[in-house]
């Protein structure tokens, strides 16, 4: 720095480093995409590696360990029964921090680690940029949790969803609202891919389902005061508010809604269905509904699974542990059927799966590689703050 710079206005001194940092981040993000496809083909001996990119840090970091545990449980069971193609399975995890840049790096790391298939993906916004990376490396993905329609719209051959999509979740919400005679609904999302997609799905299907969307609005995640959105909802006269974002903001919004005198019903999407939701919302969580794929504690005959899990990890299974467990089993089944770990063959085998039993029902992939059976149910906040089954929407 020359002496001239000291005479510059202080503002420039302030913003120069910020601009520099931003440039550096952008450059890095751009570069990491170029690494795609650099991974070597899976080796023919040693363990078969399955990769999982999931959030282990950041705002959604609660879910990463649940998913890891679920997948590990399936792997241990399969290994104890002799493995796949006579080889053991091994889980490789990477942290995507629910953030596109970290997810790209995580996917590249998994590819260079030589994984055969991906069984990860929680945040849709972080999973989307990883799709082309895995595709270029010819790695099939069985995504357990992320369920934005955008994942399907990309039309990539290697992508399979074993969680219901936003469209299916929206159907469940509308079906319940119509069933209960709640015709005026308000939609609120947190501007993430997943939440926006779900809200838009509801908006586009509402008319067919016989409900009217009286208000659709977004808030920014990571804030604490949502007075503006709350006021709009209260004055919109909606009989049902459907919050499609994650639980942290969801809890705050619900408690602020109740404080503002909102008397209608409140429903939340599966990103908010978590015990933390009720903890954050406090007493306002009473009677809040949710749309959710069924968890083991809601399923009949899952007691052994729950006790296995609890014994192994010392805690009750959390959200998406079943889906991750299923993702590993689905991939293992496909590799067994294919008789090889070659990506193309495994993808063909996945497409050929028929009535494979998973937690949410029996699995046969649709031509879009999504579930043919949605499996979404309506849950509600129970007495101890966890969500319990209210209506399985089967009737």
């Amino acid at each position, binding site marked *: *720095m020359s002496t001239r710079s*000291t005479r510059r*206005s*202080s*503002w420039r*001194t*302030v913003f*120069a*480093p910020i601009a520099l940092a931003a440039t550096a981040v952008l450059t890095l993000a751009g570069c990491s995409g170029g690494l795609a496809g650099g991974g070597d083909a899976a080796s023919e001996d040693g363990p078969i590696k399955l990769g999982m990119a999931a959030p282990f*840090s*950041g*705002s959604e*970091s*609660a879910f990463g360990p649940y998913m890891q545990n679920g997948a590990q449980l399936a792997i241990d069971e399969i290994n104890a029964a002799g493995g796949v193609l006579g080889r053991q399975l091994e889980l490789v995890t990477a942290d995507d921090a629910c953030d596109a840049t970290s997810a790209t790096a995580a996917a590249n790391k998994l590819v260079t680690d030589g994984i055969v298939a991906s069984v990860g993906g929680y945040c849709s916004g972080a999973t989307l940029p990883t799709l082309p990376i895995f595709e270029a490396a010819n790695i099939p993905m069985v995504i357990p949790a992320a369920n934005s329609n955008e994942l399907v719209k990309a039309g990539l051959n290697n992508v399979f969803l074993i969680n219901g999509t936003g469209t299916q979740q929206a159907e469940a919400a509308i079906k319940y609202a119509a069933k209960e005679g709640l015709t005026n609904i308000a939609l609120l999302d947190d*501007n993430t891919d997943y939440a926006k997609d779900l809200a838009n799905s509801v908006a586009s299907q509402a008319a067919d389902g016989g409900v009217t969307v009286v208000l659709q*609005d*977004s*808030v*920014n995640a*990571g*804030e*604490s*005061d*949502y*007075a*503006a*959105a709350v*006021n*709009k909802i209260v004055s919109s006269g909606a009989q049902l508010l459907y919050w499609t974002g994650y639980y*942290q903001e969801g*809890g*705050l919004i619900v*408690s602020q809604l109740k*404080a*503002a*005198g909102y008397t209608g019903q409140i429903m939340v999407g599966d990103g908010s269905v978590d015990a*933390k939701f009720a*903890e*954050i*919302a*406090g007493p306002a969580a009473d009677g809040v509904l949710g749309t959710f794929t069924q968890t083991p504690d809601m399923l009949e005959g899952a007691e052994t699974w729950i006790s296995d899990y609890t014994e192994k990890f010392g805690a009750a299974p959390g959200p998406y542990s079943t889906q991750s467990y299923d993702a590993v089993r689905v991939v293992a089944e496909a590799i067994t059927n294919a008789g090889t770990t070659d990506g193309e063959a495994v993808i063909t085998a996945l497409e050929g799966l028929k009535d494979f039993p998973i937690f949410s029902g029996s699995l046969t992939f649709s031509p879009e590689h999504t579930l043919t059976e949605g499996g979404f149910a309506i849950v509600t906040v129970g007495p101890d703050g966890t969500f319990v089954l209210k209506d399985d929407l089967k009737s």
Partner: protein
Amino acid sequence: MLQLVIDGLFVGSFYALVALGYSMVYGIIKLLNFAHGDIYMVGAFTGLVVFSTVSGLAGGGILSILLVMLIAMIFTGLLGVGIERIAYRPLRKSPRLAVLITAVGMSFILEYGVRQIFGPNPQVYGARLEGATLSFLDARITLPQIVLMVVAAALMVVLNLYIMRSRDGRAMRAIALDPQGAQLMGVNVDKVISRTFFIGSALAGAAGVMAGAYYGSIDFLMGFVIGLKAFTAAVIGGIGNLYGAMLGGIVLGLLEAFGTHWLGGQWRDVFSFACLILFLSFRPTGILGARVVERM
């Protein structure tokens, strides 16, 4: 309309409390203390720890929250003094860019240090401010909101008296005007700077406890956005000017309330930072800031 004003004033009073610390530090040593928002976060977490260790406090209502706030203020105040002593004082003669980067580093240390201790998940606050909702003229305001605004206003009044009436306050103003001159007149500059950091950080800590008790959930990244907002508030009001920080906080709160009402919630940050850029372009000294005379 009135509802928007109330919402704006309420959020604005948080911004103002945090912006005061920003502005005081900038006024005295010309440092943009980017770690300031994270002190707010540490304040919230200090409150959480006090509530969970001293069990009798959680149910005690407003008085216990005030007591916890006091403890958190002392802790964050001392933390601010410590940060200044370790991270900023050795660099006081360095180029301003070096100190700025140190401040950003300090901010990361606080954020990820807290994350190491408490984990990445949002924490639920031990005590919650609950109260009746009052309505007048079609607008609603809750009792906790009134209490928190009164507390914020009281803190600001006390601060103002301290700066304007006390000997220390006079020393602060003297250093802000001319550090070397003040030193020549026998002002202990180091001591006064420490004191400034103590007060600014204590106010941020108080705001942190208030936010925790009102909203009910805190996380280790909560200081980031409010740090930027407080910076924006300080700039709008006129950075380095105390009345400016208070006014800037309120103005920013109102701008946000009206902006989100007209444009939708997702535009809230775009709107407030656009205001920041407009101010920087057309009136970098803010609403109340005096024209800075360039000293050669």
